[in-house]
């Protein structure tokens, strides 16, 4: 692999860019200096830690280690998305549902690709499984958080309308359908926009990274395409599941609003 290494002292120069943002925040009185500073430090600590963790993981190449890391990422993703919904049930109630939606979404996107498309050897090779698994889990996390937030907010704001639908003989599925549709469309649009504008507006991070580290562009492009198609499946599966779970949490078995 041919790439230019970044020594730590030159990495420090890049920190000055955050300094630019902090200065602008101060001059414009945005009061974001602390957030920017802490964010920059957190990003550095988390990424440096994961850098060493990945190094250990790559060196071990043990399926148990790889899947333990994936499982930890999965739990953090589910926990994060279940905490974002302000209007819904408490996070301990949402957590198992978030876990299921994210898990199934990521599983559907990851397994066929590793078995049929990328076929890393060994099949659990951390270099492939961890970064691509992470991308799928984080995309599922965002979709699930967004669907939960929107649906629980609508169930509160539109309670009178929902109840009227029920009173007219609508099933919970029918009553909730317009809101589910709107929430899923909103959750899928960024992924679809990504598909439509990729290569025209942005060169995606993974592809850029592969090219920087010396992968032939036409191969980097293939990887990127696979990942984008995976992201579509993740968003759709996790989103639909999250909407189904939200409906169960909004309505009782007797088709009443909780």
């Amino acid at each position, binding site marked *: 692999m041919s790439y230019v290494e970044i020594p730590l002292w030159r990495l420090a120069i890049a920190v000055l860019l955050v300094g630019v943002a902090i200065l602008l925040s101060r001059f414009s009185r945005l009061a974001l200096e602390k957030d920017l500073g802490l964010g920059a430090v957190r990003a550095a600590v988390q990424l440096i830690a994961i850098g060493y963790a990945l190094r250990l993981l790559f060196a071990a190449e043990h399926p148990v280690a790889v899947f333990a890391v994936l499982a930890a990422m999965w739990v953090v993703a589910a926990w994060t998305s279940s905490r974002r919904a302000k209007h819904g049930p408490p996070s301990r109630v949402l957590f198992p549902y978030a876990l299921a939606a994210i898990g199934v979404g990521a599983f559907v996107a990851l397994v066929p690709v590793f078995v049929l498309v990328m076929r890393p050897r060994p099949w659990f090779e951390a270099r492939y499984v961890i970064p691509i698994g992470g991308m799928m889990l984080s995309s599922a996390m965002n979709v699930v958080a967004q669907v939960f937030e929107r649906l629980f907010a609508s169930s509160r704001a539109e309670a*009178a309308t929902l109840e009227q639908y*029920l*009173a*007219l*003989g609508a099933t919970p599925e029918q009553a909730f359908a317009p809101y589910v549709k709107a929430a899923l469309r909103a959750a899928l649009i960024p992924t679809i926009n990504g598909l439509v504008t990729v290569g025209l507006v942005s060169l995606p991070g993974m592809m850029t990274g592969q090219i920087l580290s010396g992968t032939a562009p036409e191969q980097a492009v293939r990887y990127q395409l696979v990942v984008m198609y995976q992201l579509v499946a993740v968003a759709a599966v996790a989103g639909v599941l999250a909407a189904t779970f939200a409906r169960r949490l909004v309505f009782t078995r007797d088709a009443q609003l909780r």
Partner: protein
Amino acid sequence: MASALLAARDVTVVRDGARIVDRASVSVAPASILTIQGASGSGKSTLLRAIATLIPMSEGTVLFDGREVRAIGITEYRRRVAYVPQLPAMFEGDVAENLRSGPRFRGAILGRAEVIALIGRVGLAADLLEREASDLSGGERLRVALARALANDPRVLLLDEPTAALDPEAANVILDLVLALADSGTAILAVTHSVEHAARLGGTRYRMTTGVLSEATASP
């Protein structure tokens, strides 16, 4: 009561440890009116919502045509026993769209003539059909909500304070309409805080005080 179309027995609603409705029993026959009059907070609206199956009951049963709600199926029951709240929410779209919503849930599409007939039943002109439902006045909204409920061809109407949010003129229109619906065979169960409106509707009259139902004195 053998002739009862809708019979609620010992309906009890407990919320946060408080008995909002305490063993209330009412029944209505076809083409008859039953009113429950009571101050706000007496539990009358809660009783009506429980009978409408929109909130859970802690105890009690509701029979429609002698059958329990679960045996009929909850959505079927709600088509037969229509509930109209005091301030009905209008659905997105025009009035015609609103009137078509109930039948659409069971896969039926109302034709133009049926929609015109429905709006006529509540005494509104057909040119209202193209109006955006959210632009209507309070009285019009209530009438559209009634027509929307009637689209399901219900046999019982549960009316929650049908006149409370209206000026006297609009309230009179609604009262006449309710009387006409009862004449045409619909069983009516209405709750109101107005003694005067309860008297105008006539029929069987109950009073509700802190969750307990009692028979009111005969209509003057």
